[in-house]
């Protein structure tokens, strides 16, 4: 008999019980939360995501990527000193930072998309606050035991044993925090070199300062503040409400099958009471990392980590009931099922209304349907996300690696020379955006008879010049263009300045102007 299984009832109350009731104080001291270990599909998924995200964070700066002799070989590097950003095969100059902005826009739209489909999945699975808090709780549980042991230890008077456990726990937390802060700085310099100089005390002050700040925030946020960061500091719980609709999957307590709750089904059945599936064991509250009771409904504190689903499912399995009393469910489905379950006249949930004679759910009950993923809202988000992605990819593939900027001298705009010819000056900036030295041919196109001279290169004569540009560097030259008196026409004469790389046949052209003073005839 399933009912013989003894389900341990957790003595736990949601931390926000009565928070909204009249007369409740605005400021409330923190109620300590001792999340119980949960087991199940979502817990395993969370372990996996934690492993992957932490691995990405800690390992990425150590990946190498060969870019030849003239560029760093770190796969991901934000080189502040030289104003370059390297990401595997992509190199970004400061003026190309819009790619990063585009990625952030994509991340934003992606967040909207994910939220409109599966609610606060970001909060529950991948947010650094969640991942590190999860890790810190795992450490705590490893040293101090599960919920009951931790509560006992917390309540116990200070003893040698307690001190030892606490010191070990906090030391481990701080070690993790140092590693977290430490990993961050490796994104901004050559990781092996920086590690060596960091350990030997040769690293710049900013490195130590950054590690100190991030160590402190990791330790405080992950170890001490935990759910308070989500509840009080983070703006996302407030914004998310606008992202959800009736078809978004959210962690839901299905009260249409859970109510009325029974403390002891045997007793209740003996009394002839009708009971729902919820045995009020509070397992869902005990595992909750933000200390709430999901049975109170959707609430700001819920980060949708789905651990209550795991906890409840294991209880349902033990007592031989179908799983999914707490489940990812849409508001539409939930409302539909609730209407079925409620007695139309009294409005009381009556479990027999949704079950047939054999105890199975009636066919009218709605369950998860993957088709809810494809709605106008999600398709629009997906379309936006994809379009931005494709546009950026296209721009990345077709972007120039040879650029030419021309600044016409403004003071003076033009100079009359001894023989009456007119000279204009231009500051020309050649951008060699690949990590190889290149010889760029600079030439003037149009402006008949005009000759070119380069202030920095007295040997240059004629209408073009070969200019060597260092790898991944900008070369700035002051170029004089002179047109003889017989050839000039008064006014602003358009012509082109062209930079050409013979080897790669890349070309950049700038539409310049040649200014000849005088009254127009």
């Amino acid at each position, binding site marked *: 008999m399933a009912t013989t299984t003894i389900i341990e009832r957790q003595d736990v109350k949601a931390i926000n019980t009565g928070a909204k009731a009249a007369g409740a104080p605005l400021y409330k001291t923190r109620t300590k939360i001792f999340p119980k270990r949960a087991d199940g599909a979502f817990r395993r998924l969370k372990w996996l995501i934690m492993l992957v995200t932490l691995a990405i964070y800690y390992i990425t700066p150590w990946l190498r990527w060969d870019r030849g002799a003239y560029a760093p070989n770190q796969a991901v590097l934000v080189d502040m000193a030289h104003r370059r950003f390297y990401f595997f095969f992509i190199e970004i100059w400061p003026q190309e930072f819009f790619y990063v902005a585009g990625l952030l826009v994509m991340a934003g739209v992606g967040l909207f998309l994910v939220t409109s489909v599966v609610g606060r999945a970001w909060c529950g699975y991948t947010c650094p606050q969640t991942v590190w808090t999860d890790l810190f709780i795992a450490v705590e549980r490893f040293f101090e035991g599960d919920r009951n042991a931790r509560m006992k230890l917390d309540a116990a008077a200070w003893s040698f044993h307690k001190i030892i456990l606490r010191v070990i726990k906090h030391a481990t937390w701080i070690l993790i925090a140092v590693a977290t802060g430490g990993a961050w700085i490796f994104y901004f310099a050559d990781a092996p070199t920086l590690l060596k100089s960091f350990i030997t005390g040769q690293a710049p002050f900013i490195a130590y300062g950054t590690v100190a700040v991030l160590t402190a925030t990791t330790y405080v946020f992950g170890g001490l503040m935990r759910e308070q960061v989500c509840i009080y500091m983070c703006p996302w719980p407030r914004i998310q409400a606008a992202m959800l609709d009736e078809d978004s999957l959210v962690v839901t307590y299905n009260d249409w099958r859970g109510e009325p709750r029974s403390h002891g089904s045997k007793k209740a059945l003996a009394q002839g009471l009708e009971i729902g599936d919820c045995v009020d064991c509070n397992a869902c509250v005990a595992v909750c990392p933000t200390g709430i009771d999901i049975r109170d409904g959707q609430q700001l504190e819920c980060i949708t980590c789905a651990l209550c689903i795991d906890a409840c499912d294991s209880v349902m399995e033990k007592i031989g009931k179908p799983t999914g009393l707490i489940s990812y469910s849409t508001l539409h489905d939930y409302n539909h099922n609730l209407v079925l379950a409620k007695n139309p006249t009294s409005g009381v949930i009556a479990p027999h209304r949704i079950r047939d004679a054999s105890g199975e759910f009636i066919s009218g009950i709605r369950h998860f349907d993957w088709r809810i993923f494809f709605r106008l809202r999600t398709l629009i988000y997906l379309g936006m996300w994809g379009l931005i992605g494709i546009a950026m990819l296209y721009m990345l593939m077709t972007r120039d690696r040879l650029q030419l900027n021309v600044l016409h001298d403004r003071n*003076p705009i033009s100079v009359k020379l001894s023989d*009456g010819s007119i000279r204009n000056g231009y500051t020309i900036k050649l951008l060699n955006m690949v990590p190889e030295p290149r010889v760029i041919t600079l030439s003037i196109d149009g402006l008949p008879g005009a000759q070119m001279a380069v202030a920095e290169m007295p040997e240059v004569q004629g209408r073009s010049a070969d200019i060597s540009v260092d790898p991944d560097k900008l070369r700035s030259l002051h170029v004089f263009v002179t047109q003889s008196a017989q050839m000039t026409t008064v006014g602003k004469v358009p012509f082109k300045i062209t930079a050409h790389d013979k080897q790669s046949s890349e070309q950049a052209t700038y539409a310049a102007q040649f200014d000849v003073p005088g009254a127009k005839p």
Partner: protein
Amino acid sequence: MANLNEVDELSGVETTGHEWDGIKELNNPLPRWWLWTFYLCILFAIGYVIAYPAFPGLHGASKGLLGWSSRADIRQELSAAEQANSEIVAKIRAAKITDILANEKLRTFAVAAGASTFKVRCATCHGSGAQGSPGFPNLNDNSWLWGGKPEDILQTITHGIRDASDKDARTSQMPAFGHDKLLTSDQILAVANYVRQISKQDADTALAATGAKIFTDNCAACHGDKGEGKREVGAPQLNDAIWLYKGDLNAIIQQINNPRQGVMPAWGSRLGDVTVKELAAYIHSLGGGE
């Protein structure tokens, strides 16, 4: 006191007694994090006024334990910048102007430094872009009164032109042909037309023909047989398109009648060797340098 303010029915919290259009403010306690931040700020402020200048006094503010001052910061930054440049400045001091221009690193530094000095010392007369104005030569073009080679430019800047305080100053004087009655006004008109002719401007050919003879007798000694000028005496080239005092007939007549003699101060003694070399490098880089 407590009885003065009413207690809000709904929340059970006392009000502050402040009321705006019927809206009353609840006297809720401050959030604890806010209060602690406030206390921390007070602590910080106490530490700050001890460590840093804070209290105004009759003779300046209190010094503070750290002895910090913004002026000391600036002094330190300036001396650090000077220190950083000292090596290259020493090289410029030792090098000849031609060697400076031949060395890319020295030239880049000298041109940049010269440009900033130019804005302060020279732009007043020569213009901020060295474009000049009537009476003050344009330094961008390739017409030079006293020579456009680097060492010529350096000499001109160092010792000046017609500067009585410097015995090495470049100097020369064009006679006041009209004022001192060396030529009649008809002769001046003729020679002015001749000058217009050799500079390829509109001129009265008959007068110019008369002027040619007068030019050879009176002007060619300094300005050359064809009006090509003579840099040793700072005599401008006359058969080109560049005019120090404009090239129209009246301006030319005026200059022959009673010439203006430009004066430039000697900068060497005021700015020092290094700075005048930097200025010369900058002027030479403007496009007309030879």
